[in-house]
């Protein structure tokens, strides 16, 4: 099956940057802020939350958690890797298509597009708010 390629399976089984900053105390004197957002797909029951730790306009760390299918999980995992180190402004200016292309790097058939896009929507929601 085309859709469950090795890379997708790897990221869905070993998702990167999973977790949250909720129990992490930001150390005194540490600059920066945590931006966060979540969204869900009602039809498949997927839910994704992203937290971006930002310092000087740059994303220095990313944590995400959620429940989702293999596609949504791999997409969130890959996107979290990509976002780390990006300038907030640059990401804000990216179109959804660019974010998929550069940030996720794999595509799915139209039927599963919503799963793929859920993490992208969440990140855009964070950046727009």
């Amino acid at each position, binding site marked *: 099956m085309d859709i469950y390629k090795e890379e997708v399976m790897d990221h869905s089984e070993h998702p990167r940057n999973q977790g949250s900053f909720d129990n992490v105390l930001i150390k005194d004197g540490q600059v920066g802020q945590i931006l966060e957002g979540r969204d869900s797909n*009602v039809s498949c029951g997927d839910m994704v939350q992203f937290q971006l730790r930002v310092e000087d306009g740059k994303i220095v760390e990313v944590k995400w958690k959620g429940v989702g299918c293999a596609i949504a999980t791999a997409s969130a995992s890959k996107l979290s890797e990509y976002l780390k180190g990006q300038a907030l402004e640059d990401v804000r200016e990216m179109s959804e298509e660019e974010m998929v292309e550069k940030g996720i790097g794999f595509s799915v058939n*139209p*039927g599963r597009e919503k799963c793929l896009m859920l993490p992208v929507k969440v990140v855009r929601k964070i950046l727009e708010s």
Partner: protein
Amino acid sequence: MFEPEEIRKDFPILQRKIGGKEIVYLDSGATSQKPKQVIEAISKYYETNNANVHRGAHTLGDESTQLLEEARETIAKWIGGKSEEVIFVRNTTEAINLVAYGWGLDNLKKDDVILTTEMEHHSNIVPWQEVARRTGAKVEMVKVTSEGLLDQDNYKDKLKLKPKLVAMVQVSNALGTINPIVEMTKQAHKIGALVLVDGAQAVPHMKVDVQKIGCDWYAFSGHKMLGPMGIGVLWGKKEILNKMSPFLTGGGMISEVYVDHSTWTELPEKFEAGTPNVAGAVGLVSAIEYLDRLGIENVREHDKWLTVYGLQLIAGVEGVEILGPRDAELRSGSISFTYTGVHAHDVATVLDSQGVMVRSGYHCTMPLHNKLGVVASVRVSFNVYTTKNDIDRLVEALLEVKKIFGK
């Protein structure tokens, strides 16, 4: 221009004979006949792609979703809107009710004015009376002149009441009158009113561009424009639809449901609860493609030609009084008349005995008929398959009325 005699071949029902006579169907304003292309599109959908719309689960579901979304795009393009602004409903009546419940209940309050007109179809009057009843708002109506036009001086006067909404028909189903809605919408917007246009009788006969009209909502039915029954459209400006409450609620329009509350999805699904009529949307697309192939400008030319020819011949029949303006530029789609001394219903029965099918009664415009002092009228209405021969047969059949009623 196209050849209506050729077009008739696409309409299976027009091949039917009743009492040995070929059908003369002059009731297209009530509902149009359907070309075989539309009928086949519906069958093909059920034979090939039928599924509920939910992406991702399986191939048929994906195909159905795609067909529904393509239908939305086709319709959006056809009327000049964006695809997420196209909401599928059952018919014009439901579209107007959606605005009445989804916008009216929340945005109107005691003594607010809803402005509609004396020539509206009941479907653009009663929902507003109901909203008025529930909110304390008041319904006012723009007067109709004796010629059958909206009285523009009266309109300007009524706008001084600062209505919150102007709800008006683009083409009257009883008089055929085409209203100057572009100009009227501008005036309404100037005083801050929103504008809903009932396009049920316009969309089948002329190019409609909601951007050019400038209105806030536009409503129409598929079944009057060669499409199937059970499908219609409410178009609305995105900003306004976004601010409206949902109307029907349930599956398909919610994002998350908890025991105590729910959240809505985005446009357009927010307004489409339950399983949509995908087959209906597919049939409607096929109807649009059919009209597009003919060319909507040609459709309008044909309609105008029929109006000119019809007005001339029908007005020539002894005892007949035409309703509405005499200038074909100002009319579309139908010709209504009374027959002195014979009730419209009896006229229709006599015509039917000759195979000529027309409508008689109020045509769902009782306030208009009261205003004109007409108890009931006979309406003949056209579509692309209507021919000169149909009008000739009508006039012949009208002579039977004289024979039977001696008038």
